[in-house]
């Protein structure tokens, strides 16, 4: 393989290669670092990039383990981890001034599993501050740019992870998805992003935005790679009370191969309300793919009128939980430190929170506190929960007749920098097709559907809880229609 091959090769290919020659891991990592040196200044995927020496030392140990005959599912693979997932000894900022110098003393369960499987964490990726945003522009440090068009955003909030994959700065990535934060950037960068069933991947160590909606999600350039990564991180965790109890691991890669050879016919629902308001060229790309899928599988249009309340319900619940989850940041035990001499704790807390949080975060905390306050809770929060329950019921009904729902990932192409962030309605409306999966706890995947002119468009599939295999299968079908080629950005 040439160095360029290393950079854009799939993890699946790399692993086969490393198994026959473990020493190649070090060449591969060198290639990744060379690539980073070349493109990072333009893309800016990483908030914290680990030193090459440190990563090499770690990789040497992986090589040793491989040579000793250990079976490592992700031996030597460079993984980019979103900066809201705790990494022991590596700064974890949530792209916020509040945690600019915070170094966690423990690993998130997902990170622990990655390390155990021989993966190498290469850096911590940029994101919207505390995952609040859909463009990676609310990062307190800098925006990340879309490798497909450096004038445009990579989506968010896991924009850094998606951009790193698209730009060849990592082979696999972890993101987190509260209302589309894995699927949105995947769609905008022509990568694959999966939001697992709520409770499939442990949230322990994921810095909470909205606990009842958050899930860590695997991201990669191919469906098979997402299956590979999911197999490693989808393990029951007693440290997370919302983790679904189950025995052992599931080999999603193997299950995907099985489905791809048996090729069962899928019953796909097209919820008409969710196909409205698309940009014309986005709609064209999506329909082209959907038509071809529906040629081989059974598609039917259904109507779920209540989906129109999904977006407000989502934002109410997310903000309410955020206002509570982010209360702990007061600068006392960790995080932004201000002068405390001669001042009361209230003064100190106020200054820490005024200076530590950015505008979008403050806005959501303030709205969330309002939503939960006595007298308004019934009107907003309780009603939002009701919508959530009704949505769940409606989709449960749909999933009795259908395997999956097909819907757009994003109704628009990636916006230019500054375009969406100045228009909150536009910003929030971007999430219209992604928030449902989080509200009902369902898994959903975004797969590259093609290009609208020069910009990526993603198609989304959503299924009932624990239907990840079918989602991967549907994704693989789309991938096949694009003749399996990973879309490579011009950068």
């Amino acid at each position, binding site marked *: 393989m040439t160095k360029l091959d290393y950079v854009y090769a799939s993890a699946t290919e790399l692993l086969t290669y490393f198994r026959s020659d473990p020493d190649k891991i070090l060449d591969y990592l060198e290639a990744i670092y060379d690539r980073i040196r070349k493109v990072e200044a333009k893309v800016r995927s990483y908030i914290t990039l680990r030193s090459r020496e440190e990563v090499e030392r770690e990789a040497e140990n992986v090589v040793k383990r491989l040579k000793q005959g250990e079976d490592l599912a992700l031996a030597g693979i460079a993984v980019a981890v979103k900066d809201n997932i705790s990494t022991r000894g590596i700064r974890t900022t949530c792209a916020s001034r509040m945690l600019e110098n915070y170094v*966690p003393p423990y690993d998130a369960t997902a990170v622990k599993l990655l390390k155990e499987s021989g993966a190498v964490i290469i850096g911590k990726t940029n994101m919207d501050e505390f995952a609040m945003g859909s463009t990676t522009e609310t990062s307190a440090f800098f925006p990340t740019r879309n490798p497909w068009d450096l004038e445009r955003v990579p989506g968010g909030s896991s924009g850094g992870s998606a951009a790193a994959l698209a730009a060849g700065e990592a082979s696999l990535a972890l993101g987190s998805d509260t209302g589309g934060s894995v699927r949105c950037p995947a769609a905008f960068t022509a990568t694959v992003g999966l939001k697992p069933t709520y409770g499939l991947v442990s949230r322990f160590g994921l810095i909470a935005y909205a606990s009842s909606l958050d899930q860590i999600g695997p991201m990669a350039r191919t469906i098979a790679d997402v299956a590979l990564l999911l197999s490693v991180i989808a393990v029951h965790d007693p*440290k997370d*009370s919302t983790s679904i109890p189950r025995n052992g691991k599931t080999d999603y890669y193997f299950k995907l191969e099985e489905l791809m050879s048996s090729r069962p016919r899928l019953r796909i629902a097209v919820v008409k309300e969710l196909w409205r308001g698309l940009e014309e060229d986005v709609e064209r790309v999506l329909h082209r793919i959907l038509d071809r899928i529906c040629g081989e599988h059974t598609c039917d249009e259904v109507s779920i009128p209540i989906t129109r309340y999904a977006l407000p319900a989502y934002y109410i619940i997310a903000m309410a939980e955020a206002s509570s989850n982010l209360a*702990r940041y007061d600068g006392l035990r960790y995080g932004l430190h201000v002068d405390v001499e001669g001042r009361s704790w209230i003064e100190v807390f106020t200054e820490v929170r005024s200076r530590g949080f950015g505008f979008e975060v403050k806005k959501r905390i303030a709205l969330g506190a309002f939503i*939960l306050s*006595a007298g308004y809770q019934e009107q907003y929060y309780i009603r939002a*929960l009701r919508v959530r329950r009704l949505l769940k019921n409606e989709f449960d009904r749909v999933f009795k007749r259908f395997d999956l729902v097909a819907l757009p990932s994003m109704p628009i192409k990636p916006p230019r920098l500054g375009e969406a962030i100045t228009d909150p309605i536009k910003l929030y409306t971007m999430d219209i097709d992604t928030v449902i999966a989080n509200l009902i706890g369902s898994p959903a995947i975004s797969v590259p559907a093609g290009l609208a002119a020069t910009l990526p468009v993603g198609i989304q599939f959503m299924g009932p809880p624990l239907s990840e295999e079918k989602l991967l299968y549907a994704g693989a079908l789309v991938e096949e229609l694009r003749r399996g080629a990973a879309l490579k950005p011009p950068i």
Partner: protein
Amino acid sequence: MGDVRIGLEIHVQITALKTKLFCPCPADYRGKEPNSHVCPVCLGLPGVLPVINRDAVKYAAMVAIALNCKISDRLVFVRKHYFYPDMPKNYQISQYDGVGSTPFCREGFLKLTINGHEKIVRIRRINIEEDPGRITYPTGDIATSPYSLIDYNRAGIALLEIVTEPDIESPQEARAFLTKLINILEHLGVTDTSLEGSFRVDANISLGGGSRVEIKNIGSIKDVERALAYEILRQRTIIERGGIVRRETRHWDPVRKVTITLRAKEVEEDYRYFPDPDLPPVRITSEFIVSVRRSMPELPDMRIERFMKQYGLDRYHSTVLVSQKWLADFFEEAAKHYTRYKKLADILITDFLRWVNEYGIKPHELRARPIHIARLLELLDKGLISIKIAKEIMPEIVRSGSDPEKLIRTRGLLRITNRDELQQIVREVMRSNPKAVEDALRNPRAINYIVGLVMKRTRGRADPKLTIELIKNELQRYKAS
């Protein structure tokens, strides 16, 4: 006092637990180096999640059953929000009666007997919640300290919050209620209230349907009684002078023995309760409750009945013994060595208890062993010591835990039963008190005075029967001469 309404809110730590409520940190934080019993979870570091300690639920269920409460079919935790430096997350994981949430249990009651009357205090609810950390002020006072120190060792310790209806009508009733409650908690093994800070009370009090005043954070039963008595007096004085009692939160100063204003309470604080999404509701099954009920230790009321049956004690003795778990335990242990139970119960609830209280000895500091009391009674039964001596050495036994037999021997307190020895003493006493002898010769009843003199001389060690016999013999001799 018919117009006084008191409601209590009691916080007790579940000291029986080995670990904290939501993390595996050890729960025995007392006397440990500050911030040494902490982990990312109880420090509320970013990204951590709570996991419920199942044993806490078991103990809570025991208390709920003992207080006749209806246990909810779901275990739901909520977040109670307020900013304070001792709370790592700036919210407390607690329970609440609201939309989508429920207290652990509700609608219970506790039956009391006060001066022979039966009284029922209703329990509104019991919640399971986490304790915050501890703030210490270097000068001991918030106002004068230039800085404060926070110890999070206590953060996350399991608490039970027991809330009564305002059924209590006097400070004495409050004391009776709390005494019985603590006794139940100790019998269940849930809480060791001798541990500092394991038991705190907030008291709500209103007079004549007026404003409710809350007194926060009272540390002992005695202080609850005092604070309430003070508060009744204060409020009554205001009303008598035509004033209006303000709705407020007050603080009990145990040193100056007064309540002082903490903050006026115009509106309910808004804690923005909502169900904790990190702790999905858990079903509480009837099988679970049945198994807890089966594993429950004996409760005080049952123990009183058993004492009456097993030891043949009357209700009064049984009740006094069982009113404090340690005393009842002490009795039962001593009863293994001494079987005249009534006598044993008697000495325990009179002399023994008197000195324990006099010295202010806490049950866990008590050095006297049950077998010591049993031995003391045996000595008494065998006539080796007098009751006077027994009473005399009781304080020593209570204070130092000395073996009564050794104590008596080393101090020479054995009864003087040797005829010659006693005769010698009697003679000396009579010789040096001719007036008393004269009286006795005239009036046989005056012998008692001489007996007294002999007892005084022997510090009560003289065998009384023998003494009288010898005095009478001597008097015969006087008459003869």
